[in-house]
């Protein structure tokens, strides 16, 4: 564990603090203050990402520190899920934001690095960015799946919204966890597919092969396949086995965590993607 006594480190710690405060404030039934703190945390996370970008002079998605910094900007996904998908777990997102920023703050090395020739490609940003976005969605889906397994019933009366016609506040209905899991995975899966295909196309341009049987490639294929299995299983049985549906979703996110962390940090999986630590 290492504390970063730098402006970059300070911004990361401020974001974590704002997210944690937002979480506790929301849990203590002060949703407006919680939302304001969450928004503040997001603003600081954007500053941290922007500062890093200015500092390294390329899109900061090269190593695990930068990737986790990016993952910390969870607020828009959170808002999208709540407003558009009608999925709950808003306060859990604040906690997820704090959790994903913690390795950036305390574990990963923040030493700036110049891009090696292989990473100097127009595909670098879209490939990593769509993967990160999909990972955030899948993490949210997993939270819903865990809620489903735990038998937690999410209140159908969700957050307050302004009724546009009457001008009165009204409650928006939130989906039950099983459906919420499905809906979020439906949003995240195309991003996961795009990430895999962009990576494959990039591999062809950089390393001469669109598929190199590298450990990271195989784990990312495994995670894509687990969610593919989820869709097939859910198509076959619908909501008859909600617990198994949830287990598929949790297994998918487990393979994502392995793809993102274990493959890069462990010496077991040395390969073409080893530089991304």
């Amino acid at each position, binding site marked *: 564990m290492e504390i970063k006594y730098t402006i970059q480190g300070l911004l990361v710690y401020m974001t974590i603090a704002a997210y944690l405060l937002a979480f506790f404030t929301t849990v203590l039934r002060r949703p407006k203050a919680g939302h304001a703190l969450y928004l503040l945390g997001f603003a600081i996370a954007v500053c941290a990402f922007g500062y890093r970008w200015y500092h390294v002079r390329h899109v900061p998605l090269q190593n695990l520190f930068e990737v986790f910094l990016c993952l910390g900007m969870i607020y828009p996904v959170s808002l999208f899920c709540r407003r558009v*998908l009608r999925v709950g777990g808003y306060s859990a997102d604040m906690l997820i934001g704090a959790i994903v920023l913690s390795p950036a703050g305390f574990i990963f090395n923040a030493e700036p690095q*110049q*891009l*090696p*020739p*292989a990473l*100097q*490609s127009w595909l670098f940003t879209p490939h990593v960015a769509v993967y990160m976005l999909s990972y955030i969605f899948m993490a949210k889906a997993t939270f819903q799946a865990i809620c489903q397994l735990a038998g937690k019933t999410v209140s159908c009366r969700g957050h307050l919204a302004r009724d546009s016609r009457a001008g009165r506040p009204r409650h928006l209905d939130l*989906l039950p966890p099983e*459906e919420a899991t*499905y*809906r979020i995975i*439906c*949003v995240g*899966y*195309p991003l996961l*597919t*795009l990430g895999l*295909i962009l990576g*494959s*196309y*990039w591999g*062809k*341009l*950089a*390393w*001469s*092969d*669109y*598929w*190199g*049987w*590298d*450990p990271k490639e*195989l*784990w990312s*294929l*495994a995670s894509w*396949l*687990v969610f*593919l*299995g989820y869709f*097939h*299983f859910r*198509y*076959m049985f619908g909501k008859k086995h909600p617990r198994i549906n949830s287990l598929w979703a949790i297994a998918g996110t487990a*393979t994502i965590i392995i793809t993102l962390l274990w*493959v890069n940090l462990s010496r*077991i*999986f*040395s*390969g*073409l993607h080893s530089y991304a630590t």
Partner: protein
Amino acid sequence: MWVGLLLIIVLIVLSIYGAFIGTERAEQLFNRPPLVVYWTALAMLLIIGIAAFRRLLRVPGLLLIHAGCVLILFGGMWGSRAGHNLQNRLFGIDKIRSGRMAIYEGSSNNHVTLNDTREQKELPFSLKLKDFRIEYYQPVYLRIQTRQGRQWKVPVEVGKEFPLSEEAGTIKIVKEYKNLKIGMEEGKSVFFDDPSPGSNPALEVQITEPGGQTSTRYVFELFPGHSHGQDKFLLRYHRVISDYISELQIIEGDKVVAEKDIEVNHPLRFGGYHFYQSSYDDKAGQYTILQVVSDTGLYVVYAGYWMLCLGVIWHMWLRHIFSGFKT
């Protein structure tokens, strides 16, 4: 559907197993005859699925996804080693699947050493290397560290003196060498830049102590740990490579038919082959090594990628946007 789900689970297990055994063994595993049977079964099942399940034909997104997967599998198998062998047997197409070729600056070559068998084959055209060069990130820095761990980083600017601290004094880079050699003249060591082929990048550094005493040090990029016990500073000179560039010409007969500077991420495509910057002569920078890869099956795979992407995006996003979300 059960068979489909079973095949997906088998592929998940194989992918995870393949990740544990390493790249080379995983490639061998996924190209073995039982796996060829598996790939064929998967492709067949997808085709049967498209034909048998009406829903797959009626829902455009699902059709694109499944047909895209068929194309990816077919293109992959057609471009594989076994696919190339089959094309040779059936149609007499004797195409190099993958290999490497070394080309010296100013000369041309059409011999490719195959990656699989190490035998040599000829391309129907030649490649000439006009020039090979390596580019570095600028500015380059000299890193200075005291034995107590205090560090500085100064840009490599010849003739400029940089103050370090009151106790450490100043440092000046006197000369930058591309290929430093040491000779003897009248019993004394003489350092000079050798113009003949070779590479030994180094810096001549002058350290001035607070009392005014000066000393000269040579910092070698290729020998980063080089220092003496009495040295006050540990010096490190390291340039970060930003690009490798081979300036190539394609020659058919006596005519130059194409020209391109290839770099990492920017291969040359010609005559059914792709040429990639793979390696180089790290001793003297006299030659480049290119990876030569056949493009057989590649565009079928790309078509499959497009279909898969469009299908997934249509099925999971766009149709919902157009018709409102339904679960």
